[in-house]
């Protein structure tokens, strides 16, 4: 695994909100084609870390590299163009639109039609719409969302909405997918479905995945490597086996024995 090239590299990032240090000199590498889980107790800085990678937070120091390119200063929309895509912990879908529209909106960066062409529509713009509609339909098939294709997202259940958001993140055709608690609040069946989809995405599409998840059993099953954060600091990194027996991690989760 470690022989694969580094896809995403987080180097010494420090993020402060006023007097609170959310991330303190955190560094880790994500190798191409792996599933890396980011775990830690509540408030450890996992989401802050994902937000820094996605560009929604600006760390005070440190650098972030994607494919060897420094993206520390790029706005989120340019990071999306470079192949970074994510889902949110508390779902940020367009709730008044259909599943299909949500996914089509995510095709934005891959579409090439001009404003004039769109105004005329017939010809280029229409061909382009159809081309991207096919791609979106493939994702709908892939995530088994055919029955909710035309449903308003706001009216769907929580588990399905999470799935639509995953679909939207996939429609960007990312090379790195950041998943912020994709299974939070789900029941066991929904979690199993989601785990299956994540493994499928990883296997069939070769997407590198960074995952935040609290369900330890699940993390141990699907992640290839794990990074553990606590109070904004990285306290451990390694394979599930190593993490399971790591004393620092056990202390962070269960408290330290006197």
């Amino acid at each position, binding site marked *: 695994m470690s022989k694969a090239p580094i896809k995403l590299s987080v180097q010494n990032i420090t993020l402060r909100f006023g007097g609170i240090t959310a991330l303190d000199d955190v560094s880790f590498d994500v190798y191409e084609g792996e599933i890396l889980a980011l775990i830690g107790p509540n408030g450890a800085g996992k989401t802050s870390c994902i937000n820094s990678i996605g560009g929604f937070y600006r760390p005070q120091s440190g650098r972030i590299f994607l494919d060897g390119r420094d993206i520390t200063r790029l706005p989120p929309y340019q990071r999306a163009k470079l192949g970074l895509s994510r889902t949110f912990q508390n779902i940020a879908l367009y*709730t008044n639109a259909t599943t299909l529209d949500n996914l089509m909106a995510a095709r934005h960066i891959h579409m090439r039609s001009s404003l004039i062409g769109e105004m005329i529509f017939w010809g280029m713009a229409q061909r382009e719409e159809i081309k991207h509609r096919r791609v979106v339909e493939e994702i709908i098939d892939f995530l088994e969302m055919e029955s909710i294709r035309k449903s308003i997202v706001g009216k769907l259940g929580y588990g399905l909405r999470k799935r639509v958001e995953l679909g939207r993140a996939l429609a960007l055709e990312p090379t790195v997918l950041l998943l912020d608690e994709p299974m939070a609040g789900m029941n066991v069946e929904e979690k199993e479905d989601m785990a299956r989809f994540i493994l499928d995405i990883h296997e069939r599409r070769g997407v590198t995945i960074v995952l935040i998840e609290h369900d330890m059993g699940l993390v141990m099953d699907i992640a290839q490597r794990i990074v553990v954060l606590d109070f904004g600091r990285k306290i451990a990194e390694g394979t599930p086996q190593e993490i399971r027996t790591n004393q620092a991690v056990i202390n962070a989760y269960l408290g330290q024995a006197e």
Partner: protein
Amino acid sequence: MSANIRPSGVFDTSYAQEMRINRTRFDQVLSAGFLGVILALPLLARTGPFGIDIVQPGFLGTVERIAIFMIAVQGLNLLVGYTGQITLGQAAFMAVGAYSTAILLRGGVPFVLAPPIAALFSGFVGLIFGLPSLRVKGFYLAMATLAAQFIIPWLLRNPLAPWTNGANPLPVPRADLLGLEISGLTLYYFLIIMCLLAMLAARNIIRTRTGRAFVSIRDNDVAAELLGINVFAYKLRAFFICAVYAGLAGGLLAIEARSISPDRFDLRNSIELLAMLIVGGAGFSQAPIFGVSLLALLRETLIPSLTPSLQEWLPRLLPFIDAVNINAAIAPIIFGVLMIAFLIIEPRGLAYRWEIFKISWKIRPFSY
């Protein structure tokens, strides 16, 4: 939401079919019928070729102005209804288009070029006043765009007076298109065609990439950024398109009215355009048809026909009312009441009601 409900038995067999504007036979017949009536109107007027006296010639003028204001309101719809930004300067952008068209035509620029150049120029002016949208939203953006509404008419009245005739009306020369004089019947058809093209272009923007980017920004600008949409660039694009539409409408108004003055483009007109949008249903592509038609018909047809009887009866019922003042007060009062009624009863506007009506028609005899 509603667009997905169709009568049972109607299926699409290709993506292209599904993207059509009029997807069912009912929609097609309705659109064609509506357009047919509009196109037939001048033929039924006394001034028409057959000399039939069914339609008042004055009513044709009303339809012409509805067509023009529909363009301005559709521009506003793209910015306010779809992108979720706000402008209180739409009338000022119309003024830019109107005066540019007038000055270009007076300078001898061919008729085919004048309105498009004026519209583009208006678009760039709109771009400048859209710049604050980078930093501010909602109420504050409204205030920032209010600047346009005060600066532009002031410029027209004072520093630019040598070209614009100041506060006095500026006559617009009669237009001709490739030797064909644009007046009367040809003007009517010209305006209807321009309106149709503008509505079609707007509808096409809405159903493709740019339109989806607009809606993404309106519904959740953080998620829009995440999808790789350059939010600021697209807000500016919305301001540009909005002002181009306003400029085109202004230019057509100059051609239709043959004379323009700055007081046709003041804050009251900007707010009236917004009122038309809200009554019509912001965020629905049919909003201009409903909003502009309702308010324009009220003002130009219904209120004038009611005024004489009101002037006679109201002072008898309420002795403190002066019959002379009723004329000026009646339109603002009716508009005000209408606006409040819409905001309370149906803030989503007439277009939304129309969608509901169409659905209930399509799924009949069931109620769900």
